């Protein structure tokens, strides 16, 4: 499937086509996984791969940018964030299933806005669990977290994806963050 096709799927999905969305999601998933793997092969170990970077790369690869507007773009990231999360969860589950000797998938919660001083490795499964909990409490807020964590969208981008104001995103993000941390670190 060429970029043109993927782009038109994205547009259809955006305008509400469930069918297009169902077709699109596995494409994004595969692409993300592929990029992750190819990066892993070309890089030496110990190098950090950023989901944000992966998501952006998948966007560039899959979507014909001339054909889309910012809403399409935002929608793509909306999907990609979810896919990225799934990839990570699947992987972590697999690893746990292996009863591996050393730890679980580690994620560093690290700050993009301020130069964070503490870096705490966090279990991706734990994050997922908490996100699920949050989804039950506040779907939109959970989505904000997901977009921020797994696709690295900026506040402005999230605001446009979710069609809310930037100040709402900021506020929701702040409380979600505080809540997550209180759960993770206690």
């Amino acid at each position: 499937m060429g970029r043109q096709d993927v782009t038109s799927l994205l547009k259809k999905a955006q305008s509400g086509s469930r069918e297009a969305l169902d077709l699109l999601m596995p494409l994004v998933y595969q692409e993300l996984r592929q990029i992750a793997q190819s990066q892993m092969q070309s890089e030496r170990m110990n190098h950090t791969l950023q989901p944000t970077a992966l998501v952006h790369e998948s966007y560039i690869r899959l979507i014909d940018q001339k054909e889309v507007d910012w809403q399409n773009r935002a929608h793509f990231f909306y999907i990609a964030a979810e896919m990225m999360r799934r990839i990570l969860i699947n992987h972590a589950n697999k690893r746990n299933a292996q009863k591996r000797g050393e730890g679980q998938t580690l994620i560093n919660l690290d700050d993009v806005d301020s130069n964070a001083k503490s870096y705490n490795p966090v279990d991706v499964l734990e994050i997922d669990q908490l996100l699920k909990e949050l989804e039950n409490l506040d779907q939109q807020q959970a989505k904000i977290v997901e977009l921020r964590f797994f696709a690295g969208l900026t506040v402005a981008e999230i605001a446009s994806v979710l069609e809310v104001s930037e100040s709402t995103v900021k506020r929701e993000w702040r409380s979600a963050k505080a809540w997550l941390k209180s759960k993770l670190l206690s």
Partner: protein
Amino acid sequence: MALCQSLAEIKTLELIYHFLQMKPENWQKIKDIFNKAIEMPAESRQEFLRNSCGEDRAMLLEIEKMLEHAADDDTLSKFNFLGEFYQSQPDAVSEPMPDKIGKYKLVREIGRGGMGVVYEALREEKEFNQRVALKVIKRGMDTDQIVKRFRYEQKILAGLIHTNIARFIDGGVTNDGLPFYVMEYIEGTPLDKYIYEQNPSLTERLKIFLQVCSAVQFAHRNFIIHRDLKPSNILVADDGAVKLLDFGIGKILSENTDEQEAGTATSMGMMTPAYASPEQILGKRVNLATDIYSLGVILYELLTGSRPFDSSIASNQHLGGVNPDFVRLICETEPAKPSTLLKKIQKPGSDTKENALAGTDEVETRKFGKSEAESTCRQAGNGFNQAATKTARPLKLPPFSASQLKGDLDNIVLKSLRKEPDNRYQSVELFAQDIEKYLSGQPVSARPATLRYRTTKFIKRNKIAVASAALVFLSLIAGIGIATWQAYLARVEREISERRFEDVRQLANKIVFKYHDAIAALPGSTETREMLVKDAIDYLDRLSQNAQDRPELMDELALSYIRIGNVQGETYRANLGDTQGATESYRKAVDILENLTNKYPDNIQYKRDLREAYRSITSSLVRQDQWAEAKSFAEKHYETSRLIINSGSANLQDEISFVRSYQILGDSAEFDGGHEEAIKLFRQCLIEAEKLYRQHPQDESLRRVYTSTAQRLGTRLEYQADYLREKSEADNSSVDEEIKDLYLEAERLHKLSVDLSYDLKRDFPNNQVYERYIAATEINLGTALARNGNGNEGIALIQKSLDYMVNASRQDPKNAEAKRDIAECYQYLAYARAAMNNFPLAIDANKKSLEILEKITEEDPTNFEFLKQAHLTYNNLGDLLLKQNKINDALIYYRKGKTFAEKMSEINRSQQIRVLLALSQEKIGKALIALYLRQKKAETLTEAKSMLQSAYELFSELHQNNQLGKIYHYKIRKLEADLKMAGGIS
């Protein structure tokens, strides 16, 4: 009592709260209150919260916790994923475990990580089954190289038998072409987990550490560096016995390919940032001190439960590189004293680690504790487990107090963690000794860091390191200069005893010659090269003692001596100018080969090699003005060459060598009141060369001999003409016709060498050296043309060569030799201009030459070739100025020349150099006399006399010691006359 109750109450509430699950509407309320509270100043919050939450204690608790975490500066805005995660992506995950790898039957998978997979396996023998751990290295690493290195290291690793080291059993390649290795299977717990679970006492911890030291010490004695020491590579068995995993593997997996060996990069892949030393982080070569540093980190962790630095930022953010912040942290920041840190952690009230460490951003926040989900790690090993610990584990405080660490243990740990490898313990033994001393209550050797130890020095050094483009050079110093090189030498000896000559030979060539060539062109590398050469000679000497009964190895050793001699003294190449040392090396080669040819008179190859040794030693002796000996070796060369062509199995190259033997004889013919002898021999050589050339017009080396002989003969004819002129000035004889003929013949010969060079270039267009042939011969031809009245044509040729040299230098701007070539072109330009009586332009050209020479001698003040050339050019320039009657200007340059001569004779007392000094004195003396005749100042005459007297004495002394050739007879006579004249003036 009241407090206890409320704590219990809170706990219960929390539990209930959790069971009840929060409802969305509650959450909205919580968010609301939180958002309002966070905008408030802290002091009014408490009241606001109480009012807002009312009786809902659970809600209050929830919000309070959120506020607490929101106050934290950092945010959860972005995830970074350890690369390891992706590296065990599905292709590896989904692959089923093979039944067998090599002769090993796989039982189960133990672990998996960035480097590959670990299996428990069985080696099935008739009598018994051996239980092993088998590790398969994942694809993507340089498989071929790894396999090759395994093969090389296998024996050494297999010989590493020690109670505390997991034995290396085997290495090989799977059917899929992946490298794997096999180790003894160890039942045990990784050190970090062990410490967390057992929480042993201080003494117990130190005793465990001593076991680790003992293993590392043993490996170091066998010249094996671990490179990746960390708690997960250390297993503790139930009985408390310690086993180290993966010794020697780090080297195999991280070394670059042979081609890159002299390069700078040490693969980042094979270290664990948390335990890596500054030199590893900087990608420098590792040595024994690297392991000592990692041991230091481990000890730090054993004593405090934390690592000295936060390694979680090691590879964050910077895809494809190390985080510069982390580099700074490791290379610049001093770790906190273990006692200070432990005190902070143990401070009452700071019951969680996070609190304890708040504000110390240089302190690692991870702990030993691991998730319960983890199974016991067995044999996870190198690279298979990244620093993988989980945050939310309660801290277990060590069962000892911070004050117990204060003093000795602080000092010991910090000494092992010094940034500069040299400032750490010089050996694991000394490290362990200090701990033993501590345990037995004796004073330890480690002292607190003084300012001297502080990192500034290290940083300064490394800044220079980066600034200087000579990276190869640096890695050489870092890598071979210290322990590694010593280890190499020691290994060499052991290899000899094992008769593994192949490896030894390779080692020799790689280390000595490749590295030398790599650094030779760099300015300022003379000292290092000297060191390298010295080590190389030691090494060859040792080899030759051990190889007496192996003629083919002795033969090869002789060739190595020749090569090292070339490095020491070969002219027109970046060299050490150590002709005497070169001669000694050549002499060793000669001795070996004379021995061999006597023992094996029928072996023609030994004779051929001997012939080359004779050739080398002759030219080296000539450069030392050791004419008599040079001549005797030249005759031996001739004799040996003759024997070879008469042996019946001679080839064309042997015939060419025979022709060349005339050239060598000519080179060794001493100036003997003229150059007749040399000229005669060169003529003979030219005739023979031409004869052979007619039969074999295509042979490259023959054509080279032919070309160089023509050039030599031409040059000697010019010398002869110069000599005749100088002599005629002294005795007023008329030799103008003779001189003219000589110059004309020289021109014809130079023309021939130019033509031959062009032919060579045409037929071998890929060989760059012929471009240089053309440039060099055209300079000679150009100068000859200028002398013979075709000035413009001559200048054009020299200019062309000059352009070539300038261009060559531009291609290789770091090469000081190329710059020297340009300077030499200007010098010839000056000769030509002077021959055309255009003194101002000649002076100009010499000044340009000096501009370059002054710069390169400044950069490399011990390079004698440069110094000598600068000296010569100062004198030439002085001569020209004197001719222009610019006596004072001339004196300035003569004096500069003298300074250079003095500089050289400070370093080297050889007669060659002292002759240069005498020449300077003579020239200054004569110029001063001319000045006196003009100005009549008494002090001028006094100085003139003293200069001439010194020159006279120096020449006479050298002559008496028989160190000087006859060439200076007439010099002495002239100086006598000059002195007499000067005496007469006064």
